[in-house]
């Protein structure tokens, strides 16, 4: 009963909002959030649809633990067909928006069609209406959120919106909620923009929209879970103090920090842009970049970074609107905006990150695309005349200017907004795009960490680190230590991580809990919250079912085994220096075994027996 059992369907073409009951059988089969919305999407759209066409749908969805007392129980996801990849896209966000949607009495909102003019959806508990957004179009997510709250005279309205990047068709546009939390990857904001949907604003005050099935057992399970998080060195101390950014020096020391568009696997400027550097006083003004940590709804970890820039930094010197506290760089963003391009100016990275939040675009894809452009420039394929500036490796000025241009679709920013794959194809060097299925790599070299290489190649939404985080065993020793260069055992471990991650992403909680929690900590919370029998075995089966359903969507969309690969640089160009010197990714050794443990054919298609076992 942790579901509200209500779905809001919004037809943007007709301008209508209607209520329908949640498909309870699907909730039992797919749990919620990522899994449940994927089931709805696969059942309602042609997988071959143009992602930016009217026929695509966009689903905002919560999980059964969203809006409960469960630690980190504030997550929501946006599920659609992604424009960057042409594959399934599921992008997950924290903040407070997800819980508010649940408080208003909705498990999910399905957007279909396309509005003739800009609109936003306002949900006040059970009432939903589409309102004119012409006064918001052409403005940032920050302006949109502030304006909607003022307009409706309620500062507690939660807003998820697109900025100018989503309006102008940046292929990796994000949906931003609560100013600096984002459904950041795979271009879900571009789909939202294609539908002329500027924002979803929600205020929830219902106290009886849902309740957990067994309150006493739920309190016990939640308390136990929180005690585990508090006692764990990572979730109790490490993440709140240093955030994800502490990884910068670790991955660099390990020799798996891709730099200069993956030409190198270590970055000489890593220490200047890492988590420790955010704590240090700047020589320019004597103040640190980091002000404090921040938490999402119900989170007892609080890994978020809140930063304040040096007001005299060249990027913001005459821009007081950026002198206040705002969302600072997390590890993946700092890597993409920094190491991927050779930029070691933490303040410039912070400013670019502010812009990514303000106008809604993914800093990973943006930074990695700038890295590809810098390599094209280095090779003489791109020129200063064409780009409009000197695009030399390590240029903070170039990074800042491209961030400003991309945010509004100006100048060469239009090209950067297409993403690395389309950029490199346009200039005749597709092999220089560091992408899988069209989505840019995050911050780990798939040559230095073999399991991550396999994870990137097989991720259903394109290159991604949070679909089966093999960094945990390969670097951090969680739950067991695996040798980074080993290939043995990696396919089976990856499958287990992918299936477990699908469960976590479908429950309404944050993946970071799994640095401390195992399934044995999560299962009692789901069991107590949801009606029915939710054993660990059943949950893993649900996770595997979700993974296979996403795979079937991608196969239907036209993707195949040929897309489960890596750029030639990772397969044939050995790492030149450092601890992983000489390494390439041995995908050829791991992929056939991965297909086998998945119960797929040698062509990567789920066998009839697998489909039957998973009730697909």
């Amino acid at each position: 009963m942790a579901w509200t059992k209500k779905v809001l369907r919004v037809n943007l073409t007709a301008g209508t909002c209607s209520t329908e009951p949640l498909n309870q059988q699907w909730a039992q089969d797919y749990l919620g959030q990522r899994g449940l919305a994927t089931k709805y999407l696969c059942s309602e759209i042609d997988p071959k649809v143009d992602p930016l066409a009217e026929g695509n749908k966009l689903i905002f969805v919560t999980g059964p633990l969203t809006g409960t007392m469960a630690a980190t129980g504030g997550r929501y996801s946006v599920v659609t067909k992604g424009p960057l990849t042409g594959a399934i896209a599921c992008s997950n966000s924290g903040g407070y928006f997800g819980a508010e949607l649940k408080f208003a009495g909705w498990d999910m909102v399905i957007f279909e069609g396309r509005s003739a003019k800009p609109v936003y959806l306002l949900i006040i508990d059970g009432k939903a209406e589409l309102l004119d957004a012409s006064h918001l179009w052409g403005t940032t997510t920050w302006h949109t959120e502030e304006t909607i709250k003022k307009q409706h005279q309620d500062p507690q309205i939660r807003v998820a919106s697109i900025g100018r990047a989503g309006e102008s068709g940046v292929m990796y546009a994000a949906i931003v909620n609560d100013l600096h939390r984002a459904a950041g990857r795979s271009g879900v904001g571009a789909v939202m923009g294609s539908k002329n949907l500027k924002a979803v604003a929600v205020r929830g005050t219902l106290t009886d929209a849902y309740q957990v099935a067994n309150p006493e057992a739920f309190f016990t399970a939640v308390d136990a879970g929180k005690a585990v998080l508090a006692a764990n060195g990572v979730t109790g101390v490490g993440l709140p103090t240093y955030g994800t950014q502490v990884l910068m020096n670790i991955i660099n020391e390990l020799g798996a920090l891709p730099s200069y568009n993956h030409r190198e696997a270590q970055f000489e400027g890593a220490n200047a842009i890492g988590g420790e550097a955010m704590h240090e006083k700047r020589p320019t003004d004597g103040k640190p970049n980091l002000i404090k940590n921040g938490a999402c709804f119900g989170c007892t970890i609080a890994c978020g970074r809140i930063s304040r820039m040096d007001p005299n930094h060249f990027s913001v010197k005459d821009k007081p609107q950026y002198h206040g506290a705002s969302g600072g760089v997390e590890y993946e963003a700092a890597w993409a905006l920094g190491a991927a391009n050779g930029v070691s100016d933490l303040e410039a990275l912070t400013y670019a990150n502010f812009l990514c939040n303000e106008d809604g675009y993914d800093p990973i894809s943006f930074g990695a695309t700038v890295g590809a452009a810098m390599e094209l420039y280095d090779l003489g394929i791109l020129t200063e005349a064409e780009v409009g500036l000197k695009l030399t490796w390590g240029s903070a000025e170039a990074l800042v200017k491209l961030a400003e241009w991309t945010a509004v679709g100006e100048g060469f920013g239009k090209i950067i907004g297409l993403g690395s794959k389309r950029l490199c194809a346009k200039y005749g060097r597709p092999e220089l795009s560091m992408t899988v299925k069209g989505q840019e790599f995050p911050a780990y070299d798939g040559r230095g960490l073999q399991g991550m290489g396999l994870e990137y190649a097989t991720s259903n939404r394109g290159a991604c680190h949070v679909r089966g985080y093999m960094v945990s065993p390969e670097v951090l020793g969680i739950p067991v230590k695996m040798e980074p260069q080993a290939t043995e055992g990696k396919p089976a471990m990856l499958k287990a991580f992918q299936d477990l991650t699908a469960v976590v992403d479908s429950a309404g909680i944050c993946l970071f809990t799994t640095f401390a929690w195992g399934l044995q900590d999560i299962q009692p919370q789901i069991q107590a919250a949801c009606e029915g029998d939710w054993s660990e075995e059943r949950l893993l089966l649900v996770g595997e079912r979700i993974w296979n359903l996403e795979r079937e969507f991608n196969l239907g969309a036209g993707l195949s085994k040929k897309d489960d690969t890596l750029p030639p640089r990772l397969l044939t160009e050995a790492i030149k220096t450092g601890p992983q010197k000489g390494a390439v990714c041995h995908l050829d050794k791991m992929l056939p075994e991965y297909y086998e443990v998945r119960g797929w054919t040698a062509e990567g298609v789920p066998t009839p027996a697998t489909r039957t076992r998973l009730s697909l």
Partner: protein
Amino acid sequence: MKITLKLFASLSLRLPAEARSSHCLELEVDPGTTVLDVILRMGLQSAECAIVLVDGVWVATGDRATKVLEAGQALAIWPPVAGG
């Protein structure tokens, strides 16, 4: 012989003030010095050293007492941390 000790995150506070920003300290150690010897010399508890790398290669907890350092090697240590 000399080795380089690198302490990160909260462990960097155990370094002399002038070394905290770089996280690096050059140490003079005797031949035969093990990873555990350095950990103890710096006043660290073995349990708070969650990630231990020698020249980028993981040293398991059970190997710290027997892993002998060689001249010029870099020993890098972190407390329990993670990211993503």
